[in-house]
């Protein structure tokens, strides 16, 4: 069937499906305008109900690339001064400014959106085991202890821009097209579990990680309690949150490479493990599944997770949500629907569908210290 | 020759309830229903089972349908014969004259003297017309069960 006809059919049939996710990465870390991701996600407008959309871009703050950048939103009761006081005690605030936004009539309940570029004060940084844990602890403190305030992005040279609205409205609101980044992910939300709240939109970020998710995590209850055990507290009332924190826990803290990460989050079935012929791999799969039992993500999901050096796309163990990938030159695209990819790359060299539980892992050429670099599959 | 099924007895599981006898007599009676048969004394036949009990050991034994059956050799009328299609040792009540040669030679002692009007020999026919003998089917503890000739247990499933 010709591509054009395909597009016509799609328009006519209203398929109420869950959220839409999209992601683009340039393997040589060449930065490109956010416009591309916006038009890609907007292609899947019907996958959302206008109660949430958002973008995450990497490499968008070249001038502050070594600074920690916090995006914070305050609602009416937000204690902005107290938070800033708290930050001043811990950081040298190199730069702070409201996030540049534009007036968009259709948006409402717009919170105060501010961003801070920080260096950790040396009295803290001297005896720190890892900067990341300090930032993590700071973000958790703000989100839990300061009413009306919530840090929704906390990485270096990256940022998350999200809110309640359609993807085009949010893109226009945050002037996404002005930013240039080598990796972009986007989300168009159809929330069922929580009411449209600016903080509840995707992507969810902690430190360098950003994650967009279509689906539902039926193992949320145990994942959340497992994460609390390790110091991550869920405050955004959406199940996606646990995915981001799990990636940080497994990859950064426990130093699992991404393939091992998939053995934990989308563990292969016991039958599959039994059939595995490579003895070491078999033992590892079984061991990881036993040790990280409570980290397993159950329920249908399609996720795209990124950090400064990798883009990952993954489905649940039964692939109950669509996810398709394509590549052209040094670009790799991942999305819920092929239409979103074809919108921005009409003739990709290769299009494929990842198997259930088997992740697509795209590493940027630059060597980043996140986990052991594995050859791109 | 066709090899017969056999009843295997596990004396360690016989609980001494003697239901096997009751169901055997009922099955071979004309009434075919326990209460009617026992109530109206229409006990047309004795059971093919000899029940034995001593202390906490008991078991019910019936004709073994031996390969080399001594009763077949001792029978002077041909009343005791081996059934071609099932390989069982069967007894033809009409031909039997009651000479008791079979009672004399049966090493298991399970050939009885029938209490019915015609005093002839009487023994278990392994419920020729049923898949499972009545005694096996109604033993509450599977103390008796049926095996095929190779000794493989035959069960309902």
């Amino acid at each position, binding site marked *: 069937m010709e591509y054009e006809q395909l597009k016509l059919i799609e328009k006519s049939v209203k398929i109420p499906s869950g959220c839409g996710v999209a992601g683009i990465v340039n393997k040589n870390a060449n930065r490109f305008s956010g416009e591309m991701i916006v038009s890609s996600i907007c292609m899947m407008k019907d996958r959302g109900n206008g109660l949430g959309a958002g973008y995450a871009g990497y490499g968008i703050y070249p001038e502050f690339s070594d600074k920690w950048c916090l995006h914070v939103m305050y609602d009416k009761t937000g204690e902005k001064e107290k938070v800033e006081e708290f930050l001043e005690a811990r950081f040298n605030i190199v730069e702070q400014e409201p996030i540049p936004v534009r007036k968009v009539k259709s948006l409402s309940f717009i919170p105060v959106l501010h961003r801070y570029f920080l260096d950790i004060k040396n009295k803290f940084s001297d005896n720190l085991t890892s900067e990341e844990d300090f930032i993590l602890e700071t973000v958790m403190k703000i989100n839990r202890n300061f009413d009306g305030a919530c840090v929704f992005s906390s990485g270096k040279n990256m940022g998350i821009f999200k809110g309640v609205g359609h993807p085009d409205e949010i893109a226009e609101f945050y002037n996404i097209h002005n930013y240039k980044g080598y990796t972009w992910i986007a989300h168009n939300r159809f929330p069922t579990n929580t009411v449209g709240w600016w903080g509840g939109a995707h992507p969810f970020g902690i430190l360098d990680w950003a994650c967009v998710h279509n689906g539902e995590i039926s193992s949320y209850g145990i994942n959340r309690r497992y994460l609390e055990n390790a110091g991550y507290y869920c405050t955004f009332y959406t199940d996606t949150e646990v995915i981001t924190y799990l990636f940080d826990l497994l990859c950064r803290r426990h130093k699992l490479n991404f393939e091992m990460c998939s053995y934990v989050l989308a563990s292969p079935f016991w039958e599959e493990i039994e059939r595995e012929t490579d003895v070491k791999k078999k033992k590892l799969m079984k061991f990881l599944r036993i040790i990280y039992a409570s980290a397993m993500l159950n329920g249908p999901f399609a996720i795209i997770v990124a950090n400064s050096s990798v883009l990952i796309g993954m489905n649940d163990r039964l692939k109950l949500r669509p996810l398709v990938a394509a590549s052209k030159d040094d670009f790799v695209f991942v999305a819920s629907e092929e239409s979103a990819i074809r919108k921005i790359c009409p003739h990709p060299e290769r299009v494929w569908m990842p198997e259930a539980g088997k992740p697509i892992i795209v590493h940027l050429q630059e060597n980043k210290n996140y986990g052991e670099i594995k050859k791109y599959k | 020759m066709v090899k017969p099924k056999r009843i*295997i*007895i*596990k004396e360690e599981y016989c609980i001494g309830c003697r239901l096997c006898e009751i169901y055997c007599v009922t099955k071979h009676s004309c009434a075919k229903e326990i209460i009617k048969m026992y109530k109206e004394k229409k006990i047309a036949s004795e059971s093919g089972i000899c029940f034995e009990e001593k202390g906490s050991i008991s078991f019910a034994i019936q004709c073994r349908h031996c390969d080399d059956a001594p009763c077949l050799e001792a029978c002077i*009328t041909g009343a005791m014969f081996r059934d071609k299609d099932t390989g069982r040792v069967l007894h033809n009540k009409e031909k039997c004259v009651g000479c008791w040669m079979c009672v*004399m030679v*049966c090493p298991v002692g399970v050939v009885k003297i029938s209490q019915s009007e015609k005093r002839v020999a009487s023994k278990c026919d392994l419920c020729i017309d049923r898949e499972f003998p009545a005694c096996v089917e109604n033993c509450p503890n599977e103390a008796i069960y049926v095996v095929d000739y190779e000794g493989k247990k035959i069960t309902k499933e």
Partner: protein
Amino acid sequence: METKYLIIGNSIAGVSCIEGIRSIDNVGKIVVVSKEDIQNYSRPLISYYLAGKISENSMAFRSAEFYKENSIELILNVTALSIDTKNNTLITNTGNIRFEKLLIASGGSPIVPNIQGYSKDIQGIFTFTSFSEAKKLKKYVEEEKIDNAVILGGGLIGLKCAEGLLEHNIKIHMVELSDRLLSSTLDKDASNFIETVLMEKGCVVYKNDTIENIYSENNKISKVKLKSGKEIETKLLVIAVGVKPETSFVKDTGIQCNRGILVDQFMKTNISNIFAAGDVAEGKNLITEKSSLIAIWPVAARQGKIAGINMAGGSAVYEGMFPMNAVEIAGVPVISFGITAVDNLENYEILKKSDGKTYKKIVLHNNKIVGSIFLGKIERSGIYAGLIKNQINVAEFKSFLLEEDFGLLILPEKYRKHIVVGDGIEV
């Protein structure tokens, strides 16, 4: 005439031999010769026939199909005269038959003692071993409306004949040489039971006596005079003193005989392709460990089968049997095994129990059962046959042997398990 297998005698020994041969070779030609004129009948049933309990056409113990299925060539009214062992030929009254394998199962013939005044053609004197004799006797009794009869011999045949005649309400005078009826199988107490039962039926028994001479008028018996001097008017005398193996045609053929034809454990005579079985053969007696003549149906059946198997090239061993008897006389069932009456008591042990209607006796020899009698209550007596056959040491459960509910549960566990769990067992 030529045949691969030749069988002399068409009773249980001959028939079992056919079954034995056919279990190995169902092609080889089998010829059976019989001096009688009926296709198949069971000899012990002649007393039931005499008593009118069964008719002529239910005398057979194998049907006509049996002979057809096994493709048997049965030649009746043939009397064997002699055997030419060098040329493997049987000489008979109707011609000669060459054979490769021969079975002699000619059975036994009645013993007729020479009594003064006896002659073959006197009317009213019968022996009682074959169906033809039984038919003649029954016809004679009905036609002559006999009301009293004398039976010489208180053994099994005499008693069974007496029981048959009693059905025609004939007054019986039984003359027995020894001191008791059924002397070969029962002891004093048991035969007293039988005697009292027979007397109640109007039967008179003369023990330690015999017939000295026979008187006849116009060639029909009229009176007999006993040794004790007693004289009995009668028109019917049945001679039932015993049976001797029919070995007349075997004389000077080189086949070794004692009272019967001697056979080894494969039922072979001293001539390799000639076998013998049944009442004519002398096989091993398990109890006496010697070879002896046991003229009973089960022995003939087993010997015939084993002979047949070996004749057809199979290999079967006759481990030996022992005398056993089951009979019901005037409603009283009696079963006896092995040695029942023991004269010298030194190494035998006797267990006895009796109440009014039943009598039970076990004879033990160094803790093994060598004989027993069950009178009145005979159920489960076969278990004792098993104990004798397997020569089980009964020391531990000797006290239970006479118990009313004696059963398998009292036997040593290994033997019981073999019977209860294991497959069948042959005696």
